[in-house]
């Protein structure tokens, strides 16, 4: 199917004060496009699992007083797939002591590297494409430079890694978005209800200047943590079993006590159901 990359220079006719921005949109110009309206898909939620965090390296010999570490803050897909189909840009809000503390990253991989000496909270604001969501999402992450284990000198080879797993949920996705990411590896899309059909759009061509948007072969990928829900699920299941067993036991004991006749039973408010 033919697709063209549209480069659109947008003029904001409304107010002259707003700057003009050049936006690169990759869009398919299929006929089927026109049939996809911007209605919402009901009762289906689209979920984008992400991992965000920081990796910090001690600079060793090259370290100075004001720049002792080199660190990278990023937002990546949990399976290291390209998030560019969902995320338009990410704004990293750094400590005010940095020059231009508001850094905007407009293409995947959404990351930022800097040198510094201090630990602080980084604000991460995720902005989505217009057909995905108008609202942005705010996350916070504490930059960690120094390892937990303070014994011994810091290694320049082994970085300090802090990652958090989370899932971005779109409870009410637009049909356009849904159609676009149906088969996208970074996105978890439930099966469509029977009888519901949307035209399958070709995957978007990546016109990213950075090259690929996924992080599978990212230079730092060897340090990425593995997040497996299996462990947690197992633990939760066993905990639930324990609790359920106790509940059964208590219920039995309560029924035993209830079964015992009392000499004079006052109207007991404890027995309300």
């Amino acid at each position, binding site marked *: 199917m033919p697709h063209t990359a549209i480069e659109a220079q947008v003029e904001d006719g409304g107010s002259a004060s707003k700057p003009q921005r050049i936006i690169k949109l990759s869009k398919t110009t299929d006929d089927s496009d026109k049939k996809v*309206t*911007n209605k919402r898909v009901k009762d289906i939620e689209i979920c984008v699992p992400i991992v965000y965090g920081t990796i910090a390296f001690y600079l060793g010999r090259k370290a100075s*007083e004001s720049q002792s570490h080199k660190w990278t803050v990023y937002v990546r897909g949990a399976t290291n797939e390209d998030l560019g189909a969902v995320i338009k840009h990410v704004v990293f809000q750094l400590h005010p002591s940095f020059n231009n503390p508001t850094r905007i990253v407009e293409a995947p991989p959404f990351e930022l590297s800097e040198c510094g000496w201090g630990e602080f909270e980084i604000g991460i604001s995720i902005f989505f494409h217009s057909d*995905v969501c108008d609202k942005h*999402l705010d996350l916070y992450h504490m930059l960690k430079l120094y390892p937990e284990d303070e014994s011994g000198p810091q290694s320049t080879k082994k970085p300090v890694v802090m990652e958090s797993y989370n899932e971005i949920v779109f409870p009410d996705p637009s049909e356009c978005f849904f159609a676009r990411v149906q088969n996208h590896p970074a996105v978890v899309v439930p099966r469509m209800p029977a009888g519901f059909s949307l035209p399958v759009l070709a995957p978007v061509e990546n016109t990213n200047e950075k090259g690929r948007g996924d992080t599978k072969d990212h230079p730092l990928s060897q340090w990425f943590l593995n997040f497996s*829900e299996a462990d947690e699920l197992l633990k939760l299941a066993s905990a*639930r079993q324990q609790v359920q067993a106790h509940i059964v036991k208590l219920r039995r004991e309560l029924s035993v006590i209830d079964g015992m006749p*009392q*000499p004079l039973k006052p109207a007991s408010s404890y027995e309300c159901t």
Partner: protein
Amino acid sequence: MDAKDILGLPKTPLPIPQEKKSRPQKDSQRKPDGISREVYALTGGVAPLMPSIDVSQLKRRPPSDEKITWQWLPFTSSARKDDLQLYHWVRVVNGVPPTGDYSFAKYNKSVDVIRYTDEEYEKYLTDPKWTKEETDQLFDLCERFDLRFIIIADRFPTHRTVEELKDRYYSGTHYLYVVSRAILVARAPSPGEVAGHPLVKEPYNVTQETERKRALSMVLSQTKHQERKDAEVLAEAKRIAESRMAARAAEEPDLPVPSDVGPESAEGAVGPGDTISPSNVQAPAAAIAPSTSVIADNASTLASLRMLRVYLRTYALEQMVQAASSSAGLRTIKRVEQTLQDLGVNLKPKVPTKAVCAEHLELRKEILTLLNLQKQLQYKEAEGSSFRDGSYGDMPGTAKRSQRAADQDRTFVPDTISFGVIPGDRVVKREQKRKGPGRTSETPSSPAGAHKRPRKMKASDL
């Protein structure tokens, strides 16, 4: 690391003459009288704007030229209609007793009860439910008792409710004020003032008053159970209103087109606006239907989550957890968290996928159920024990049974220790401190709930 770097201060030091100037100024400010510098600094280091207590007045003594004596003298009060003479201590200055009326006479205020003439009664005040005699009596009592209707109702010869009496009095007086203005002009200051009189502006409404009092007594006599139900219904209503507000708030950003995206988005903005309204209607309706409050909590939380265009899984979990534990107190919540920790479960899941969050939520709910059951069990224990302590302890059969229940409690508690969940905090400490065979006789036998009447295991009870 240079401290100045950390603080972000400029590297060049402040010019020295400036520093010297600021210091002498501060010194002069730090000279309060009477209290030490540190104490002064405690109160802010600045002189107060308004002196709270005038210290100079406290040590003042009466002027030495005045001679003060206290004498036991008789007095009369203008508030009294008889000539009763009483005695009291009087502060006499230089042999001259104080003049003037009794100082409390000015507080003898009474209500201006309008009295009608017989003529006025015939003209304006006849009422099928009231005889002239009764109305006369009523107005007499009103004057005597300064419109204290509860007393008047007590003293009234025939049985009338306070509301009826009030109604008769106020409507009668109202009528007299408004209708018979010609007569009243002589007595009342002016028509204008008459109109401004509260009796005229806000007439007494019998039905409203009776209803209000009935409602008040209903509220006061509500049982705890009813109170709880009312609170639940109100909370639910609030949540529904909030989810509607969230829907409205979510709608608004759709309408203005975001300025940095091209015209394609204009269509996108209009579309969702239409579909929001049907889903808005559905969500509150779904929240109203369920009968129990827990399901309502969940449904309304889900509805409000769906109103958001985007949210994080962890946020959703937090909201659901909050909704599920909304009926639990802080202590219960802490206990749930303690239980989770003892079970080796993270309070906030490390890998919050949809499945993990769902399991986590269910686990929390089950722990809540468990704690509730434990509490119920405690209460039953306490009930059983209070029977034994009282006169019902004479019956040997029941005494034995409740003792058995107590034993069950004993055997149960050690099990819960295995993963650390204990009904009451106090019991935890006791059990942990005294482990050993002597436990049964030494440990205070009442669980935290029934600590008012400790159970004593005496052979004499049996």
